[in-house]
Structure formats: structure tokens, C-alpha cells
């Protein structure tokens, strides 16, 4: 069994509600950080970027681009740089995984990632008294000084694997393994599946012509695909040299 899990995100369907971010944080025991935390020191394994077409007045439009780890399949930038094998591409699933317990916090992988999808624990995690009772079993909390990122809710994969094993199956049911953000999206903008399986709807969607990937020309073969019918969104995401960089998007 050698799956290649990936996503197809329909940007036209994204209303930027942020449900995916909250669901992701809750699933992965991301702590609420001190008030000093900003959009540059926070922990947002799933982060929705707000972008616009650069026009003013009635012609102006905004769109939202959810960005998690792209799980690059080729020359994965973060894997080759890690000095102590805290990052690796899982052979069985294609998931790019970050092991906080191995990480020494040198942050080299963060400089290597063109999508800024990796986050450093600048603070020790802490919760208001009693709230630690609500932590999700199956996901270990991280300590300060290590890097973390989206790992496609592998805790849910573990649960699915255990279920399969208990039922004497070798393969998991895809219905048992749905990442939190996919489950949370109120417009079903995110399709998740095994891109290596031609019968998987997500795989078919991913390989259809209207999808694209961020910074595809870097050749890292991301496994998160996007689609949009709006040319300006495509232009943005594909980073045509004209680059409608949005000012004031880190207000």
C-alpha cells in the first residue's frame, strides 16, 4: 500500500470563515498563545490568506487562499535541510512529517519552505486552568523551541489504521480518514483523497486541467492543488511575474 494523500481546494468556494483554521488547531492541540503573538509568531498549521485583485472601487474583489503544508513530493525543500532527520516524507502515505521530539529548533526548514507553512513554538504551550482536559487524545502537545506544521491529521490516520487492524483489514477506509479542515469546511471547498488512486474523486479532480499549484515552477510537486475560475486568482496563485502582491494583508 503506497498512498499519496493530497487535497484540491476550490478557492471560489472559500468564504474565508476560518472554520478550517479553528478545527485544525483544536484537532492538533495547538495552544492559545500570549496576546503578544502575531500573524508572524503564531501557530497556524492551516492559515487562510486574504488577497485581492489590486483594483479599487466596484471592480475590487477579494479572495481567500488557505495554506497548509503542501507536502511537496519532489526534492521536498524542508526534508533535505534538516540536520537530524526530524523531517521525512512518509513512504506509505507521502505525508511530509515533522517530529517535534527530534527537532532541535534550528529553523533551517522554515527558511527552506517557500510557502511559510512551518511554524516555530516561540512559547511553551499553556492553556487556561482546566482546559487541558479538552486536549485531543492521540496528538501529543509540543514543547517550546521546536518546529511544527500540518501533518494531514495523522492522528486520524492512526485511528483509521487501528480500526482497520482490529477488523482484520490491511487497508484503511478513506471514510475513516478525513483531516479536520476538510471536515470543517462549510462549503466543501476542500476535497481530500489519495492522489495515487485513479478512482479517487479527489485524484481525478487534482489531475483535471483547471487545477494549479502554488509556485509550481519551483518543481517541488506540491500535493495541495487549487482551482478557481477567476483569472486574477489563478494569476496570483501561480505567481505570474506581474504579481498582484497585496498591500496591507499583514495589517
Amino acid at each position, binding site marked *: 500500500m503506497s498512498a499519496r494523500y493530497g487535497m484540491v481546494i476550490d478557492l471560489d468556494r472559500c468564504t474565508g470563515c476560518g472554520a478550517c483554521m479553528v478545527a485544525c488547531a483544536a484537532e492538533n492541540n495547538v495552544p492559545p498563545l500570549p496576546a503578544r503573538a502575531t500573524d508572524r509568531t503564531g501557530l497556524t498549521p492551516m492559515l487562510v490568506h486574504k488577497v485581492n485583485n489590486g483594483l479599487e472601487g466596484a471592480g475590487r474583489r477579494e479572495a481567500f487562499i488557505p495554506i497548509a503544508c503542501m507536502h511537496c513530493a519532489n526534492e521536498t525543500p524542508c526534508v533535505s535541510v534538516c540536520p537530524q532527520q526530524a523531517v521525512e516524507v512518509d513512504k506509505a502515505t507521502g505525508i511530509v512529517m515533522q*517530529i517535534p521530539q527530534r527537532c532541535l529548533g534550528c529553523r533551517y526548514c522554515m527558511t527552506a519552505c517557500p510557502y511559510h507553512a512551518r511554524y516555530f513554538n516561540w512559547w511553551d504551550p499553556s492553556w487556561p486552568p482546566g482546559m487541558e482536559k479538552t486536549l485531543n487524545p492521540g496528538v501529543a502537545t509540543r514543547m517550546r523551541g521546536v518546529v511544527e506544521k500540518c501533518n494531514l491529521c*495523522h492522528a486520524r490516520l492512526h485511528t483509521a489504521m487501528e480500526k482497520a487492524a482490529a477488523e482484520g483489514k490491511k487497508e484503511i477506509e478513506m471514510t475513516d480518514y478525513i483531516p479536520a479542515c476538510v471536515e470543517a469546511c462549510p462549503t466543501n471547498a476542500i476535497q481530500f483523497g489519495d492522489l495515487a488512486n485513479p478512482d479517487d474523486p479527489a485524484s481525478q479532480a487534482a489531475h483535471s486541467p483547471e487545477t494549479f499549484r502554488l509556485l509550481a515552477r519551483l518543481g517541488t510537486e506540491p500535493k495541495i492543488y487549487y482551482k478557481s475560475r477567476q483569472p486574477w486568482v489563478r494569476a496570483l496563485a501561480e505567481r505570474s511575474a506581474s504579481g498582484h502582491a497585496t498591500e496591507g494583508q499583514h495589517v
Partner: protein
Amino acid sequence: MNRHVLAFAIGLVFALVAGWVVFPRVLYSHQQQPVDFPHKTHAAKSGNADCDGCHPFNSDGSFAGIPKNDTCAACHTDKLGTSPAEAKLVDDYLKTGTTTPWLVYSRQPANVWFSHAVHVKRAGLACADCHGALGTSDEKRLYEQDRISGYSRDIWGHSISRLRRAPHDGRTMSDCEDCHHKRHIEVGCFGCHQ
């Protein structure tokens, strides 16, 4: 000159003794189980010799681990014998309804995902393959805890040098890796980490 060698040698020997003999004794703290539990006797008296009589799998495939009080209460509604251990169990825990604070010899840290279902049901390992004779002996084992790492001594194994170990002595990451390697099973980091 000899005198110098002697001085050096004394230091050396001192270090070796301290390191090999004293250190392991200092490193681990010793605790008694809240209640002495003779596995062998229970297996005999209760009539179910197989482990899953008291350590079953949950419906969702997860492993129940150490039984809850109600499992004990099934037989020990009241004292059956005269052993002080049983008296303690019944009076202090079963009657008061406080969960017995068993010490788990093979407890792995939170960042480890170990699925009994995968190892027992799919790979078909026997309990004793990892837990040894635990279930078939009445030995009252001490629970030894590493003062620095907080792990049970069973994780590192009882030989401080980890040389010449019993087959199921030690449950460190490299032990898992060795076993997987022997069986040609390839799991990445996330095979066992969470």
C-alpha cells in the same frame, strides 16, 4: 613515576566503580504497586488464563490496558480471602470508588503511538513477546522510574549498558526499530509517533 600511575589508576577505578555500580542505583527511584497483584494466582483462580480476559480490546479496536475497578469488583465485591493486599484493594479503592493508581511498567510517553490491535491482531504477536512472563508469574515487581527522564526502567531495559539483555527487556525506540527491521516492516516516524 609509579606513584603517578598509581594516582591516575586510583582515579580511574573510582570512576569506573561510581559509574557502573553506584550510578544505576542512584538514577532510578523505586515505588511499590498500590496493591500486590499476583497474575499467576488470578489466572488460576479466575479460570481465564488468557490475557484478554481482563485486558480486552475496546469496540473501536483500541486496547483497554489495565482493567478498571469494576473488572476487579466483578469478583472482589467483598473480601474473598485474608490477604492484606486484597483488603487494601477492597477497602481503599473498590469501596471508595477511587481508581487504583496502578503503575504501568511499559508506559510509553505521550508522543508515542502504539497500537495493540496492529501488533496483536494484524501481526499476531503474543503478549509475552513484549511483556515477558509478567502474566504467568506471581513476582511482586518494583516499579523503577528514571529520575531524569521520568520513564519506567522497563523502557531502557534493566541492563544499564543495554548489552546482553533478555529478549523482551527494553522498549526504547531502537528496540521497536530492531523488531520491525527483523520482520522487514518499514514504518516511518509517524508509524509510531504522534
